[in-house]
């Protein structure tokens, strides 16, 4: 195929999809971030302008070939970007899917003789976090995790997995107990973030999170973290200073929700998908950034399709993870944990 012909085909292809673009325009306005829509629109407009000029100046020696090639490649890039945005957004939605197995499901199916422990011994019992001790592979471990609930009744009971200071303090109490009796600790992370409320602030939300982080750095037992759904900011980190951190394929872990990020930086809710993609909150991204140690693959289409199988997969991964630390001393566990986090960061020196 000659160079000329090849280009022609490429443009035919574009004008063809221009038609499609028009047809799906109404839909696209809802689906796609506004800013990106504008970009696509203006590229097509430029292309049209060039075509018009070309038509009326057919005698002129002006050559529009390069300009057209440039626009074509820009459109191609924009399409690719859109595909990435959609892929990331699908993961954000899956991570929040109501039918994914929740902390309670993992606890019920994996740990035998589980006994739930309640209360922070200071003020109350925060239901957004379930904590207790149980057995896995014949060994006693402490288990702590956020609850989200499956239906609206449960969700309200668990406050949508948004914890108060008393929830973090309850967790710390159970961690202390585990540390004293040399029980490894397993945490399940699934929270939109710590509860933003007046009472939470009055009870020292910031300090409760910070104190938990500090406490985990002093543990002399292994702490295994499994990110099973949404890993929302400080509320997630408050249970997640691990020796080994595993993340489900469609879970997310982020400094801020895509919605919150879009509202603050773009000042615009239509940029939510773009924010999600920029934040690099998927398991793949986090493995690349060395924030997690392992991705746990989910059944086809997501954990919600085969919850029982998902739980089995997590169980076997937990057993593997625990066996890694069987012969590691408490002091070493503590030092390794500190080192793991203190090297994180990118800067110029």
């Amino acid at each position: 195929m000659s160079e000329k012909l090849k280009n022609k085909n490429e443009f035919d292809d574009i004008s063809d999809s221009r038609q499609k673009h028009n047809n799906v325009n109404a839909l696209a306005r809802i689906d796609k971030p506004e800013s990106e829509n504008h970009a696509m629109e203006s590229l097509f407009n430029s292309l049209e302008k060039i075509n018009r000029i070309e038509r009326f100046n057919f005698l002129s020696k002006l050559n529009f070939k390069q300009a057209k090639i440039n626009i074509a490649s820009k459109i191609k890039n924009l399409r690719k970007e859109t595909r990435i945005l959609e892929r990331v957004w699908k993961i954000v939605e899956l991570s929040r899917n109501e039918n994914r197995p929740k902390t309670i499901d993992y606890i019920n199916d994996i740990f035998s003789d589980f006994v739930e422990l309640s209360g922070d011994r200071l003020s109350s019992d925060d239901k957004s976090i379930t904590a207790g001790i149980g057995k896995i592979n014949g060994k006693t471990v402490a288990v702590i995790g956020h609850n989200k609930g499956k239906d609206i009744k449960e969700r309200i009971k668990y406050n949508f997995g948004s914890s108060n200071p008393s929830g973090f303090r309850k967790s710390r109490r159970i961690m202390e107990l585990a540390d004293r009796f040399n029980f490894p600790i397993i945490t399940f992370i699934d929270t939109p973030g710590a509860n933003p409320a007046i009472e939470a602030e009055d009870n020292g939300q910031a300090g409760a999170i910070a104190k938990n982080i500090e406490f985990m750095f002093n543990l002399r037992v292994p702490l295994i973290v499994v990110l099973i759904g949404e890993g929302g900011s400080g509320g997630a980190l408050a249970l997640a200073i691990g020796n080994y951190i595993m993340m489900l394929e469609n879970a997310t872990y982020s400094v801020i929700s895509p919605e919150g990020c879009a509202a603050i930086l773009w000042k615009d809710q239509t940029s939510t998908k773009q924010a999600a993609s920029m934040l690099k909150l998927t398991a793949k991204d986090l493995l690349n950034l060395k924030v997690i140690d392992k991705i746990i693959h989910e059944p086809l289409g997501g954990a919600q399709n085969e919850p029982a199988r998902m739980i089995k997969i997590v169980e076997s991964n937990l057993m593997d993870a625990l066996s890694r630390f069987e012969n590691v001393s408490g002091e070493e566990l503590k030092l390794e944990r500190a080192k793991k986090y203190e090297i994180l960061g990118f800067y110029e020196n």
Partner: protein
Amino acid sequence: MTDFKCKACGKMLDLDVFLKDLKVCHYCGYHYMLDAKTRIEYLVDEFTFNEITENIKAVDFLNFTDVKPYKDRITESQQKSGISEAIITGCAKIGGYETNLGVMDFMFMGGSMGSVVGEKIKQLADFTISNKFPLILVCASGGARMQEGIISLMQMAKTVSAINRVKENKIPYISVITNPTTGGVSASFATIADIIIAEPEALFCFAGPRVVKQTIKKELPSDFGLSERNLKNGQIDMIVKRKDLKEVITRLLKLFSVGQS
């Protein structure tokens, strides 16, 4: 034009008086934000501050672009503030006592904590452990730096880990909360200090007033997140006016009697 209107009480302030009062309103006592350099000037003994790790600079490792590329935001902040990052760290004498000091600057990208702030605090902690002088961090921050994604969240863990080592070495750590200190900074190194001092009316909370208001869809109490409310709720040790800050810190350093020259 040496007069201006106080943004808190609306009274006319004389600039000379305002500066003499360390940028506090003569009438209503409102404490204006300080940039890091001015804070250091007000707090430490003259000519005793020696900066460390001044060459650590931010990089845009995620290629983060919102309405503006992160790269441009860094450059703009550096030009506007005249400092390289949202914290200046070093050692200094306060009331004759040797200290290790970190001062955050809200004017630099809202004092947000990214890799550089995390690394500078970590190195200051290492420095502290080597010289055993007390550690003082003056906080002013909107929280974690979103442009560094999850790595900014990890700086909460990193700074807490580093300061945990300082505390293990039984070296006193004082944090000074200034307006505003929220989000990732309030939920990490700011709140694990041996002593927490706050300036009057400083906003010190995890979730900011806007977020809380949006979530609960109710008006917030007028003192939401402020030092006075935090003191009442047992979240801080004391509220100290800017003019007394140096004296109070000196008294504490004397009581801990470490690093006396």
